[in-house]
């Protein structure tokens, strides 16, 4: 390696760390502001005292507990339904032969392009005629079936060897039992990957929940945070940062613990 190349190499390494620092800085800042008194929010002194007072005032100024409960309920409803619906449809598309299979797949994949976010106007009309505005199930409804999940499971189920299915049939398994006992366990990594992607998507989803929730009864964390953080609310940076950490805390904790699985999952989900 020439001298020139070595210098290029170290320049590239320094840029990598620099960019990494820039990328994580908003989160570091949130931690800084949340754990220090408000007068240190814009004053980065190493001798600044630590405090939990921002968390206390954030917690008292917004119903974080209901928001979090709503987010958990909504995310759970969506995930459970998606796993059920996508398993059945994915199996049918992967293992059954029938006229109209291509058409069915095409109709399903349409959701990849025309995402529920785009159809907020009409879906709101539907929800209000069903009188499901401001309910947990209402926030979940447009997402209960997922084209992405169906496609992912279809690809996985396709790789299950025919001999295995035949053997299970000889053992007397068929229909739903076959799916649950043979296909679901074999596709476990796909289920894990899909679940992590789905949870982080819906934990973070904002536009549709904003449209379809009106009160604390169904409002998730994202919508709550938008109201809480609005400049009109007059809350200072330190308290907003504390609120932000409360809101992202659970997801961030899960993410840090299962970091490898998370990243693997996103990778796997993208390749299929």
């Amino acid at each position, binding site marked *: 390696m020439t001298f020139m190349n070595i210098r290029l190499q170290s320049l590239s390494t320094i840029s990598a760390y620099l960019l990494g620092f820039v990328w994580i800085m908003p989160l570091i800042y949130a931690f800084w502001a949340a754990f220090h008194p408000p007068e240190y929010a814009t004053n980065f002194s190493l001798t600044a005292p630590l405090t939990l007072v921002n968390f206390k005032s954030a917690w008292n100024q917004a119903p974080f507990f209901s928001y979090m409960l709503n987010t958990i309920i909504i995310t759970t409803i969506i995930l459970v339904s998606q796993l059920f619906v996508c398993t059945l449809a994915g199996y049918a598309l992967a293992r059954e032969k029938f006229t109209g299979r291509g058409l069915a797949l095409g109709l399903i994949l349409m959701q990849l392009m025309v995402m529920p976010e785009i159809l907020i106007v009409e879906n709101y009309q539907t929800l209000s005629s069903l009188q499901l505005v401001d309910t947990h199930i209402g926030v979940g409804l447009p997402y209960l079936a997922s084209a992405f999940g169906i496609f992912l499971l279809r690809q996985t189920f396709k790789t299950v060897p025919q001999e295995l299915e035949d053997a299970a049939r000889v053992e007397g398994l068929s229909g739903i039992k076959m799916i649950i006992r043979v296909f679901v366990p074999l596709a476990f990594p796909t289920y894990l990957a899909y679940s992590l992607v789905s949870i982080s998507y819906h934990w973070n989803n904002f536009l549709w929940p904003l449209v379809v929730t009106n009160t604390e009864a169904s409002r998730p964390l994202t919508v709550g945070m938008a109201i809480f953080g609005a400049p009109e609310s007059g809350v200072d940076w330190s308290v907003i*940062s504390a609120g932000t950490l409360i809101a992202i805390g659970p997801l961030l904790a899960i993410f840090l613990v299962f970091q490898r699985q998370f*990243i693997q999952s996103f990778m796997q989900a993208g390749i299929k």
Partner: protein
Amino acid sequence: MHKRFNLKAWLLLLPALLLLFAFTHWPTMRTFWRSANWAKTDVAEPKFVGTENFALLLDDPVFWKVLENNFWYAIGTVPTSIALAILMAIWVNGKIRCAGLLRLAFFTPTILPMITVANIWLFFYSPDIGLFDQLLRSIGIDGPNWLGDPDMALSSLIIMTIWKEAGFFMIFYLAALQTLSPELYQAARLEGAGPWRIFRRITFPLLMPTTLFVLINALLNAFKLVDHIFILTKGGPNNATNLLLYYIYETAFSFLDSYYAATLTVVMLVILALIAFVQMVLFDRKIHYK
């Protein structure tokens, strides 16, 4: 065994098809219907107006402004996020120290909610007391009014979007890089090829399928990601940061005109159809290893 009518298969598909019909296909059709009708309120009886809503649209300066913004938003976010994603993936995949930590730093924005991190970015961008202006002042530069200046605001949104997206796209490149054979690189090095040449002649062409996949997703995001607008600018100043989906939201839920909002949605559907078409053409050509 090819069955003409396979009851079991259709029963298995029924929940998915019903849900998708109710919340994707039906609302898509209703959007077209609504765009050809008009009523003063949502409870009033709508009357058929043909293409009148579209005539209104063509005369609406905000609509054109929004389209223009969305165009620049896509131009601003898509290529830069892709380039950064490739760079990040190459770094993290290489022999750099603390690669795991670096990967974590790049990826973290992906799992954070746009809406809550926008609150932090709002502080970064606030005039004078904000972090960016403070940093700039410390080196003697008067920082711009990041969100208040109409010429600057959209760029500020673009910067935040790139920060949010690049690490996500990095993941796909990382997955692709791990499938490339090390022998190829050894051979190239033996031939005396430098890092830039190796990237241009080997890595980049081999990553082409991933780039296509990411490109389509980044394009879709350019039309779908509007959450941060709610916190940072609310479309202002003077519609400088208003994007199509945000305008649809405003029209339907602030101005309460669901018919005009549907008309705008039709434009969105046409754009999405175009992206789908581009995707089909590109994937058909299969830009693969030559």
